[in-house]
């Protein structure tokens, strides 16, 4: 096939196929959406905008000027979201290029694309490069300047799609937030899908509009491994924490601790383990959470040995480590400020545990029976053969418990989430103003650990 000119009807059929291709890939476009507002709706907004153009156009309109006018008006009215508004302005400029024509040549189309991006740029008060705007401009300029006049639309669209893709793949180099997120620009990708659909139509491949969503092409996303490596080499801050219990280790990793050293009461880690972790995280400033009174000194020792900026926050329990992480804000400019936030509520944290007594004893006025549940903070506060009673009594014995506002319940090995929630519900009745949260800690030694703040 060789299409040397397009009239209104023919262009509308290309646009229709463009729409179908965009719609099938709308989820990919949504997933790429990080700029300017990462609300994941670029694909939807662009499709709805383009559909407005299609719905406002007559399939029987032969004059390209008249078809263009109707299509452009339709997209302007249907435009939604930033990407839709920019697309509608591109269409408007593109369609201005059809003025005075009954049908157009490939040359006319290239000039119209130039008019399209000019209009789109003027619609945005501060045009940002690395977006759909760049993809429009680079494609149009390259088609105009780097090629001989195109003999037919098939050749034009084959080259247009190639140029557009090249420009799209370069967007992360122009816009930092795309690079950080490991994606290409979403609006640019939407535009590519429109043009690709038009190219397919020219080669006789018409989509039927009912086909299923396609999977996202990998090339639009930086593989996780590369993204992680990129991030790691630029880390400004990293947190190294000691923790014990598989759940606790996973938990600290999930909230942003870069390296967790398996340690704790029965298995104190060495200074070397810390130093190795400092090397591994490779950050400008390292913050250490020892999370156990017996590990603080080791962590400090390691900080001295290591040739780098290491700060030890003397957390004496994993509950204190939790409190520190919950307040952390790694967007602050200096490590001193980060530490100030992390330590802000630390003096208010009470760490309490429920464990099992290993022998009979009389401690702190509490009668402890071997095998019974013991509630303790720094002191033993309660003992009962019933775990709930031991917990309630322990809470009642904590000084200033009425002033505490939030308790995070870490439940240990052998305790189910349902058990933990039932315990929280019982505590809630005694402390109606307190907020409770639950985390599976899978600690070996303790049935429960409470971070009471």
């Amino acid at each position, binding site marked *: 096939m060789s299409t040397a000119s397009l009239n209104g009807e023919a262009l509308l059929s290309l646009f229709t196929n463009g729409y179908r291709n965009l719609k099938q890939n709308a989820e990919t476009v949504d997933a790429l959406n*990080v700029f*300017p507002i990462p609300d994941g709706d670029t694909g939807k907004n662009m499709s709805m905008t383009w559909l407005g153009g299609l719905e406002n156009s007559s399939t029987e309109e032969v004059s390209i000027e008249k078809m263009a006018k109707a299509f452009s008006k339709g997209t302007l*009215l249907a435009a*939604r979201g930033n990407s839709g508004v920019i697309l509608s302005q591109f269409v408007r400029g593109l369609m201005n290029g059809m003025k005075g024509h009954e049908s157009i040549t490939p040359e006319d189309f290239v000039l119209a694309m130039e008019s399209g991006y000019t209009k789109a740029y003027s619609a945005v008060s501060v045009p940002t490069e690395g977006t759909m705007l760049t993809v429009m401009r680079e494609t149009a300029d390259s088609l105009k300047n780097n090629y001989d006049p195109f003999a037919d639309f098939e050749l034009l669209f084959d080259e247009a799609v190639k140029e557009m893709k090249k420009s799209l793949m370069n967007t992360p180099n122009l816009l930092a937030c795309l690079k950080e997120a490991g994606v290409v620009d979403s609006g640019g990708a939407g535009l590519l899908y429109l043009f690709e659909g038009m190219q397919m139509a020219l080669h006789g491949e018409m989509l039927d509009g009912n086909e299923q969503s396609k999977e996202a092409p990998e090339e639009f996303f930086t593989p996780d491994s590369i993204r992680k490596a990129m991030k790691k080499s630029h880390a400004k801050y990293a947190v190294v924490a000691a923790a014990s219990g598989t759940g606790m280790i996973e938990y600290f990793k999930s909230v942003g601790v870069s390296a967790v050293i398996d340690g704790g009461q029965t298995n104190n880690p060495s200074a070397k383990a810390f130093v190795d972790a400092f090397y591994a995280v490779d950050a400008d400033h390292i913050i250490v959470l020892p999370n156990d009174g017996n590990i603080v000194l080791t962590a400090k020792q390691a900080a001295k040995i290591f040739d780098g900026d290491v700060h030890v926050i003397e957390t004496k329990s994993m509950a204190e480590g939790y409190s520190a992480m919950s307040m952390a804000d790694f967007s602050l400019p200096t490590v001193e400020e980060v530490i100030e936030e992390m330590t802000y509520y630390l003096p208010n944290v009470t760490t309490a545990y429920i464990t099992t007594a290993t022998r009979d004893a009389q401690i702190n006025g509490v009668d402890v029976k071997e095998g019974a549940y013991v509630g303790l903070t720094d002191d033993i506060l309660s003992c009962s053969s019933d775990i709930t009673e031991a917990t309630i009594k322990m809470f009642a014995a904590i000084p200033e418990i009425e002033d505490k*506002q939030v*308790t*995070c319940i870490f439940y240990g090995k052998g305790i189910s989430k349902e058990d933990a929630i039932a315990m929280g519900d019982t505590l809630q009745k005694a402390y109606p103003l307190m907020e409770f949260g639950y985390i599976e800690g899978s600690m070996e030694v303790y049935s429960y650990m409470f971070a009471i*703040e």
Partner: protein
Amino acid sequence: MSNFAILADSTVDLTPDYLEKYDVDYAPMNYTIEDKEYPALLDWSIHSSKQFYDFMRNGVIIKTTQVPVNVYEEKFEQYLKEGRDVLYISCSSALSGSIHTATTVAKDLMEKYPDRTIRCVDSLISSLGQASLVIEASNERAAGKDINEVADHIEAIRLTRNQFATVDSLEYLKRCGRVSAASAFFGNFFGIHPLIISDKIGQNYAIRKIKGARNVIPELAEETAKAAINPEEQTLYISHADSEDQAIALRDAIFEKAKFKDCYISTIGPIVGASVGPGTIIAFVIGNEVTIQGGAS
């Protein structure tokens, strides 16, 4: 006497009596509940504020869209036909793309009406922060300033509006991507309430965390009172998402720390409301120019 029209949009959160008092019009954005689209009106004549926030409390997802092209065309042209210029003071461009559409429409209409002026000013804030700029513009107009003087003035002072907000749940802000902070900031923690400012590019930025619900009002009041310059000469603005008790408690806590001329409290409209969720309270005062800029936008 200047007679240009002042136009805001649905995020200005002024009650109808104030819109009338200051002779301010607004261009509605839209919100969608279960695939049905409604204009976001400030008189709550479609859904009451209670109904609206109850939808959100019950998990209904409310989507919002910017001011449509034809709405701007109609609003602008209505005044141009009367021979009046139009000053449009928009919602922050970091929260809505509306101003881009408005700018394009304005450009076209000024070709059609070469003797008329439309000025589109990005307020870089929303809710009653935007309202306080709109009211200042109205007062300047009443003092006889022309449209360009007023528009330039608003552009020059817009960053003096300091916002201090907190939300009940971060889910809404996260869902629509409208809060800037590292993801780990909002990890799996309990009892954390963010203190959210409007930064120098007009995006909501969680600047600090407050732990414990009972600490929220005192800390918010502290920050707000501290930021206000000459509070005795200004109105304290507080908006809330169906949480008037909290708004009043915040006003009282701020009044204990600083003496303001008066206080205006209103309900957060459907557009800002849909992105912050029920229980949100926001205080606005005039303070130093905002210089902080959040992370990735």
